[in-house]
């Protein structure tokens, strides 16, 4: 049973290899992409149900026992994240069929997408810090190529900032890993959790913790380390932006959750929680202010990612079970809503001809149903009941009040007003106001030129993710109970440790 944890890594790898062997037969690439994403989804659900019913799954690769070999571990948190990555992978595989041009497909767009998903899944499933570094690299290298694929000048400009900052953060990561290994003599997370409290020389422990916080902070785009994100996320094709927006920053948040609940705990991480609390407030405010000022739809959404990361970091830094469960629910809800909004922005571009909100308008009159498709994720993100964002914010804010973090709770509330404002801005500009170019007639756009099949491939992911947002909203309780179970397990690392080390240590 434990072997199933290999599959979220093996399926994308085998698929990517198969695509490389098939060379230029992009038709097959598309099919393989969807098949592999669907298979990953089934496997992810199986892992999730196994972790829910029988606890932490772990696998020692090559039969080398922990802490000497590399452990792969799926606890409930990892399982939830793998499910989300499979969902986004599947939706993006479909959306790519509708939107990615054939040139990019010939330059291995589809295999790169698979390798990106492999890196993301690896980061979620590994139980070893150096291995986490390796998965980060797999993910980053794929994302570098996806970002510049097509070679437009603006893409290269964005990529330079993205690559530079991410390489810097990788270097810091590596330095931190080195120092930690020198101190503790192990890099297995479960083993570290056992050994760190017993360390004799603790002088550098805070330094290492801060270094890890910085490197994951860069990946998660936390204030003040977020500048690469709005500089680069609006440049690639929208399917790529969507998968980056949905998954990549969340890998950073996941790593922060994992490290500062399992590896560094209580006193060792007290300083980190303080810093994270402060920076979460700034992250929320700066992100949303940036968003309000934008008129390019994708830039607006990119700034929004940052603002939403603030809520998750706020919840993680509070460290109560309710807060962590809230943060997790927030992350799951946000992955769905954010990716969906990027998909919608791609459709807006195809229907109205531009991402710039100033130049377009009148979409609601021509395509009323599409207006509805936009409103579900937009209002979900802003936190209008009964959609999922409302519950996510409710829980995080309640956890903030319980912890007595009044200032930050007030910040979180006012930021969600601004979030609503910026969503309404998109609505007003793109859908409601008259088209500044005069009356347009329906049915003569880029979108209508691509044929029924491709149209369906664009609409289907938007509808599916919209439904997920609605389902999370209406059936909030069962989902939140699950998140509470996840949070309890996360804040109680003993089970994780026992599963990996076999109870020997």
């Amino acid at each position, binding site marked *: 049973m434990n072997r199933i944890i290999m599959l979220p890594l093996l399926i994308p790898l085998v698929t990517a290899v198969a695509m490389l062997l098939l060379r230029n037969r992009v038709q097959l690439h598309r099919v393989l992409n969807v098949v592999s994403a669907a298979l990953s989804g089934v496997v992810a659900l199986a892992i999730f149900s196994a972790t829910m019913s029988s606890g932490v799954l772990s696998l020692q690769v090559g*039969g080398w026992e922990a802490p000497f070999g590399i452990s792969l571990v799926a606890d409930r948190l990892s399982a939830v994240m793998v499910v989300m990555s499979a969902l986004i992978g599947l939706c993006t595989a479909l959306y790519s069929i509708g939107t990615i041009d054939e040139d990019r497909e010939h330059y291995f767009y589809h295999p790169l997408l698979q390798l990106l998903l492999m890196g993301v899944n690896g980061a979620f499933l590994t139980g070893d810090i150096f291995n986490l570094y390796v998965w980060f690299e797999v993910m980053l290298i794929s994302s570098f190529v996806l970002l510049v694929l097509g070679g437009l000048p603006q893409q290269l400009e964005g990529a330079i900032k993205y690559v530079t900052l991410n390489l810097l953060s990788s270097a810091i990561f590596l330095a931190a890993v080195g120092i930690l290994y020198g101190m503790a003599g192990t890099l297995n997370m479960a083993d570290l959790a056992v050994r760190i409290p017993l360390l004799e020389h603790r002088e550098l422990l805070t330094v290492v913790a801060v270094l890890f916080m910085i490197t994951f902070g860069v990946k998660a785009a936390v204030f003040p380390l977020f500048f690469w994100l709005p500089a680069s996320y609006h440049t690639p094709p929208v399917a790529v932006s969507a998968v980056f927006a949905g998954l990549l920053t969340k890998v950073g948040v996941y790593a922060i959750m994992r490290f500062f609940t399992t590896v560094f705990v209580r006193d060792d991480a007290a300083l980190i929680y303080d810093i994270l609390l402060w920076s979460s407030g700034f992250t929320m405010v700066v992100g949303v202010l940036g968003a309000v000022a934008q008129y390019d739809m994708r830039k607006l959404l990119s700034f929004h990612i940052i603002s939403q990361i603030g809520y998750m970091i706020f919840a993680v830094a509070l460290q109560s079970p309710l807060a962590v469960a809230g943060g997790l629910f927030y992350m799951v809800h946000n992955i769905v809503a954010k990716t969906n909004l990027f998909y919608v922005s791609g459709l807006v571009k195809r229907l109205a001809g531009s991402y710039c909100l100033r130049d377009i308008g009148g979409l609601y009159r021509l395509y009323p149903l599409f207006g509805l498709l936009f409103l579900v994720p937009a209002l979900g993100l802003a936190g209008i009941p009964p959609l999922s964002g409302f519950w996510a914010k409710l829980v995080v804010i309640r956890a903030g009040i319980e912890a007595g973090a009044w200032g930050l709770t007030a910040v979180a509330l006012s930021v969600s007003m601004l979030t609503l404002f910026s969503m309404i801005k998109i609505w007003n500009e793109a859908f409601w106001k008259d088209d500044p170019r005069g009356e347009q007639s329906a049915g003569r756009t880029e979108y209508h030129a691509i044929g029924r099949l491709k149209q369906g491939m664009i609409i289907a992911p938007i509808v599916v993710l919209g439904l997920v947002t609605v389902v999370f909203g209406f059936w909030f309780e069962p989902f939140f109970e699950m998140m509470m179970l996840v949070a309890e397990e996360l804040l109680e690392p003993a089970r994780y440790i026992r599963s990996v080390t076999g109870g020997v240590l």
Partner: protein
Amino acid sequence: MYSVILATASRYLLMLLLIFSVFLLLRGHNEPGGGFVGGLVAAAAYALYFIANGIDAARRIVRFEPLGMIASGLLLAVLSTLPSLLAGKPFMSGIWIDTGLGPIGKVGTPLVFDFGVYLLVLGITLTIIFSLAEEDSKS
């Protein structure tokens, strides 16, 4: 610039370096060497040939498409994990077969994996060299 000495030498050096790269690949399990270094040395052999004889000649003697090498290298690496699954051992465990022949000794899945790495490194390095060379000859 064409040099007779280099062009003649590169023909013999190519064979020698390729044999050396296989030697490095095979001794890699217990001693310095392995698929990565082996692949680099093999790529260096072709690079030398390209410097001496030009890109077209180099493309002709590389029988396989570099991209195919990358794909089959990855495929071999993935396939090398299959025996461990079939034998019911933990994923990626090394499975060894003793051939009983003195000079060959034991053969196992890590060798297959290493050969995959060899092909992958060779393929990627050749892709880089060839595309840089073509870029150069265009300008």
